[in-house]
């Protein structure tokens, strides 16, 4: 199972690099949404790897709530660009 996590870390580095070279706030937001879903899937992988029920619950909650936070943030940033 180790190689799976190493591969996901490699996939996680791509959006981090994208967020580092800032051009447009929306490109950074895309990188953030990608990272948020990737980290919660990684939490699920770890929970299955260790056969731990609690970690799995936390992973699912982060997966659903992180997306809601992203929508809130997207609307606030849209309002700032309007004026």
């Amino acid at each position, binding site marked *: 199972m180790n190689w799976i996590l190493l591969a996901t870390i490699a*996939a996680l580095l791509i959006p981090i690099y994208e967020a580092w070279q800032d051009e447009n706030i*929306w490109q950074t937001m895309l990188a953030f949404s990608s990272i948020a879903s990737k980290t919660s899937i990684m939490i699920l992988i770890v929970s299955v790897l260790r056969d731990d029920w609690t970690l799995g619950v936390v992973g699912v909650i982060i997966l659903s709530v992180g997306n809601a936070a992203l929508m809130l943030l997207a*609307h606030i940033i849209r309002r700032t660009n309007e004026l």
Partner: protein
Amino acid sequence: MIDTLSYLCIGVGIFFWFWGTLPLVGDRSVLFKLHSLSVADTLGSMSIVVGLLLKIPREWPLLVLALISLAIWNTVLGYVLAYCSSGGGD
């Protein structure tokens, strides 16, 4: 047999992740990147979760919940991001 199938699912999911994320680095428009990200990334994540489900069927309520929230939330988030980044329809 089941073990091989689950590894296959996870491998396909990671391949989809790379496929969806690599266009993020280029100089394309936000909507193009959003399209590849929301389609390939969500499919990859769902395939990984299905692989995990085959590996440990005991945790099925959790993983099914993860599948549903991935499918619904990521679709809605794609629409919201597209709406917000294109100026909000005014």
